[in-house]
């Protein structure tokens, strides 16, 4: 695999397709990131932050009633929803905030869809006294109003983005444009395993605490690793975080993309399942675009999955067959929210509900002695207004 040796690449995917203006910042980030990962004191400080601020380790929870209801494999939940701020996103923002301090930068910017990454960035910025601007599409500001308020309460400025479809991709464009002009004193805390190198690798490493803990917890509780792991895929960070520490083990892995309203272009956000190789936001990966190379419109009930691209390492895993990718419709995700809430008293984020829905599909086909692990990437408080609206409409 000679291409794999090219730094910043996963097979033919990845790279740094960004304007020259950003190249020196990426080089600096790459240097600092690699130096930090080899620095015991940085790793110890990151570990302390994960424990004391994020509240790690997160629980490994046996979903007894859900397991009984489904009548197949034993279902476990990795409770990233229990983290401070309510999702896995805090793991990454703490790591990148520490790097920001290391680089001597005083300001951070971020893009956000569901607002979870925005809240996690605003939180890390508050903890470390950094100035923070978060770019968010106005459609997402509407559907994730609670998180907008939280960011502002935490001292961040939420910058409304009105270009394109006014969702995650457009917020990402605007954050990159800000960075073009602020790169000398600002760090861009990208929220997923997307973007130019070193972001995909770096964000994955900061999220790998999920998989390392899961591995240990599984061995402790069950004496073995799970048969199957299911995670939802927006950019792919919670999935990469839980997959990578077990990627060389005999564990089946499934990534679930947003199937939206239908599988017609524009109605979903399933870049891996329905897209083709392309270039978006600085990396070569699977992208939803038209035949001229223009980025396609996307849709998902879940703001955090509503994105036309995906992390380049997932593209590589798709091609090699290491991970299987599938989709879950808006409707099935909503049903999964209700099912998990009633069975276990856990209201999942709409994003995470995509993984729950897939698990509900496959668990009954598995044997009772088999183990199915769901990465429950976040909690659903932020989605309650949106879910209430949709359930009301459904009744009519």
């Amino acid at each position, binding site marked *: 695999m000679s291409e794999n040796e090219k730094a910043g690449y996963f097979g033919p995917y990845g790279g740094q397709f960004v304007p020259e203006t950003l190249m020196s910042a990426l080089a600096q980030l790459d240097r600092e990131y690699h130096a930090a990962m080899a620095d015991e004191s940085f790793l110890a400080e990151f570990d302390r932050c994960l424990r004391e601020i994020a509240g790690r380790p997160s629980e490994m929870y046996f979903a007894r009633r859900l397991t009984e209801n489904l009548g197949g494999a034993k279902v476990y939940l990795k409770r990233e929803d229990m983290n401070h701020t309510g999702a896995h996103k805090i793991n990454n923002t703490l790591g990148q905030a520490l790097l920001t301090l290391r680089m001597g930068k005083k300001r951070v910017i971020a893009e956000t869809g569901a607002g979870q990454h925005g809240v996690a960035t605003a939180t890390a910025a508050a903890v470390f006294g950094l100035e923070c601007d978060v770019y968010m599409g106005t459609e997402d500001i509407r559907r994730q109003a609670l998180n907008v308020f939280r960011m502002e309460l935490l001292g961040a400025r939420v910058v409304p983005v009105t270009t394109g479809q006014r969702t995650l991709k457009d917020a990402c464009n605007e954050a990159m444009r800000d960075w073009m002009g602020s790169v000398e004193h600002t760090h861009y805390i990208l929220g997923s395993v997307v973007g130019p190198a070193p972001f995909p690798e770096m964000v994955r490493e900061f999220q790998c605490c999920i998989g390392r803990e899961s591995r240990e917890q599984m061995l402790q509780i069950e004496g073995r690793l799970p048969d199957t792991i299911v995670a939802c895929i927006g950019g792919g960070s919670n999935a990469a975080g839980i997959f990578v520490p077990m990627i060389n083990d005999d564990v089946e892995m499934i990534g679930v993309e947003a199937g939206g309203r239908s599988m017609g272009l524009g109605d979903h956000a399933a870049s891996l399942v329905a897209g083709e190789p392309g270039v978006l936001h600085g990396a070569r990966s699977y992208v939803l675009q038209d035949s001229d*190379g223009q980025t396609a419109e996307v849709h998902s009930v879940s703001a955090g999955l509503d994105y036309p691209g995906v992390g380049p390492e997932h593209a590589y895993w798709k091609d090699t067959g290491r991970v299987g990718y599938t989709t879950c419709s808006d409707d099935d995700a909503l049903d999964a929210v209700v099912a998990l809430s009633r069975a276990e008293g856990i209201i999942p984020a709409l994003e995470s509900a995509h993984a729950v829905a897939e698990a509900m599909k496959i668990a009954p086909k598995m044997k009772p002695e088999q183990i199915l692990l769901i990465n429950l990437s976040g909690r659903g408080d932020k989605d309650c207004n949106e879910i209430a609206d949709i359930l009301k409409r459904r009744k009519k």
Partner: protein
Amino acid sequence: MNNLRDNRLVKTFAGLRTAGKKALMPFLTAGYPDLETTAALLKDFEARGVRIVELGIPFSDPIADGPTIQASYTDALDGGVSSEKIFEMVRSYRSTSLTAGRSGDGSLALVAMVSYSIVFKHGVEPYLADAVDAGFDGIIIPDLPLEEASELEPLTSSAGLANVMLIAPTTPPERRLEIARHSHGFIYYISIAGITGERARLPEESIRAVAELRTHTDTPVCIGFGVSNAETVAHVCEVADGAIVGSAIIHRITDAKDAPRDELVKKVGEFVGELLKSII
């Protein structure tokens, strides 16, 4: 490997240098507000004495562009513009050179500014071939930095297309020289760390940096981003081989968008005419 000896962009700059002249390089969003207007503007500019034009291929997600150019891209895409239609327009513009012998005769050097997202989707080789075949002389791929461009360089040269590369204020000194060595036609010096858009003043460091760069390379150096009026054009051209003016032109097109085509072309043409005066 160098098939660029007969390249129109290379020859145009050589001619300008011999004559001791500088280049004013207007930027147009291809297909904004429509392709017929773009074609009319090319002819008008040419008749006024412009020698090189940069044509922006509209993209849905232009990271390096400010609100003015972004909006023109969105508008052009909403109007159904695609690379294929732009190539057709350029081909027909070139064909007028066969029928007319006067100025405005289809012999501008044309440089395409296009995102790698588009080039990659079409396939690099077919895209370059189509661009050359249509009549483009150079290509700028702003999101394809040195590290990713190594495969592209031989392909552009053998296609007869000049691959223009960019240097930013944030580019370290040694890397500038490396980029300069790999840039063909001219070197695009970005005057400001930031996105496109009109600026009242340009940083003096950039002017000095271009003067310094010119002592290391024979390739022409042009300055773009923020150059927006006759004064900045004149200032930039004290050291550079040319000035690229984008947002200031696009905003004038936007202002005249609802006027009849002739009127729009006249208004925008007159602005370009003023800019031209500042370098002659």
